[in-house]
C-alpha cells in the first residue's frame, strides 16, 4: 500500500460533519449563481438545483443520508432560530397589518384550512395511506412547524420535511403565473397567498418580485405557522369524525 492516504481520508471525511456541511454550502452557492445567471427564472429555483446536485453526489459516492445529515443538520438546525426571527418582519409590518387585520385574518384562516383540508382530502380520494395524508396535511407550513405537527397527528416528520420543500418549490415556481391568470395584481394579496401556501421558499421568491410582497409573504408565513399549529390537529379530528377513512 503506497497510498494509504486517499481511502483513510475518505473514511475520515465521511464520518465527520465537515463534508456534509461544506457540500451543502458549496452546492447552494453554485445553485444560487446558476439562478442569477438565468435571470432568476423560477424554474431554476436554487433549492431544486442544489438538492438535485447533492442527491446525485451522495448516490454516486454511495453516501447514506444519515452520514450526510451529520453535517447537514447544522444548516437544518437554523430553521428554528429563523422561525423566531420572523417576529422582526412581523413587527415591522405591524402598522400595515393593523389596517388590514380583518382581511388578513379571514384569508389566513381560510388559507390554512384549505391547505390542510385539500391535501388530506385529495390524498384520501386518490388512495393515499393515512400516514401519507397526515404527512401531507401540514405541508404548507414552514419546515420545523410542519414536522412538529406531522409527528403529533401521526405522519412521518422526515417525509413531511421533504413534502414541505416540494410544496414551497411548487408555490415559488407557479405562483407569479397563477396570480397573472386569476388577475390578482395587489402585492399584499399575492404576498399573503404565497406565504400561506409556500412558506419560506415562496417568501424568498416573493422578495424578488417586490419588498412589499416579500414582507406580506413573510408575515403570512409566520402567522400561518402559528395558525397551522393550532388548527390542523383540530381539523384532522373533525375530518375523522365526518369522513371515517
Amino acid at each position, binding site marked *: 500500500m503506497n497510498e494509504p492516504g486517499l481511502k483513510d481520508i475518505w473514511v475520515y471525511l465521511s464520518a465527520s460533519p465537515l463534508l456534509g456541511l461544506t457540500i451543502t454550502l458549496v452546492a447552494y452557492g453554485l445553485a444560487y449563481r446558476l439562478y442569477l445567471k438565468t435571470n432568476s427564472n423560477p424554474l431554476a429555483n436554487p433549492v431544486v438545483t442544489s438538492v438535485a446536485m447533492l442527491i446525485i453526489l451522495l448516490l454516486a459516492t454511495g453516501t447514506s443520508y444519515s452520514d450526510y445529515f451529520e453535517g*447537514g443538520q447544522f444548516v437544518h438546525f437554523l430553521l428554528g432560530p429563523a422561525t423566531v426571527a420572523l417576529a422582526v418582519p412581523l413587527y415591522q409590518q405591524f402598522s400595515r397589518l393593523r389596517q*388590514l387585520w380583518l382581511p388578513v385574518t379571514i384569508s389566513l384562516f381560510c388559507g390554512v384550512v384549505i391547505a390542510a383540508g385539500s391535501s388530506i382530502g385529495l*390524498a384520501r380520494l386518490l388512495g393515499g395511506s393515512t400516514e401519507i395524508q397526515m404527512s401531507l396535511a401540514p*405541508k404548507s407550513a414552514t419546515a420545523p412547524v410542519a414536522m412538529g405537527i406531522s409527528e403529533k397527528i401521526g405522519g412521518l416528520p*422526515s417525509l413531511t420535511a421533504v413534502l414541505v420543500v416540494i*410544496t414551497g418549490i*411548487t408555490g415559488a415556481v407557479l405562483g407569479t403565473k397563477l396570480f397573472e391568470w386569476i388577475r390578482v395584481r395587489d402585492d399584499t394579496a399575492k404576498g399573503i397567498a404565497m406565504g400561506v401556501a409556500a412558506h*419560506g421558499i415562496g417568501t*424568498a421568491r416573493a422578495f424578488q418580485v417586490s419588498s412589499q410582497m416579500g414582507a406580506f409573504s413573510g408575515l403570512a408565513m409566520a402567522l400561518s405557522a402559528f395558525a397551522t399549529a393550532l388548527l390542523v390537529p383540530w381539523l384532522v379530528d373533525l375530518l375523522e369524525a365526518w369522513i371515517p377513512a
Partner: protein
Amino acid sequence: MQFLNGITLLLVYQLVGEITVRLLGLPIPGPVLGMVMLFVTLMIRGKAPESVDQASTALLSHLSLLFVPAGVGMMAHFGRIADEWVPITLALLLSTVITMVATALIMQVTTRWFAKPLPEKEGGDE
C-alpha cells in the same frame, strides 16, 4: 458583536419557547411560541434592537438554503414516494395551487370589502 448578540437572543427565545411548550404540554412547536414571545417583546419595547434586526435579516435572507438538507432527505424516502407517487404528487400539486388561488382571491375580495371605508375613519385615528 451585534450579530452575535442577535443570534444569542433568537436562540434564548427559541429555548424558552421549547421549554414552555414541553412544561405546559402546548400543541404548538417551540420556535413558534418563541416567535410570538419575541413579537410581544418588540411590541412592548416599541422597537427592534439593531442586533436582533441584523441577525434576523441575515437568517431570513438565506431562508431557502436552510431547507436544502431537508430536501435532500427525499433520497431516504424514495421507496415510499415511489409506492404512493400518484396521491403524493397530485395531492401536493393540486392542493398547493388551490390554496394559493383561493387565498389570493379571498384576500383581494375581503380587502375591497373592508378596506374601502378605512381611509375616512383612519384620519381621526392617526
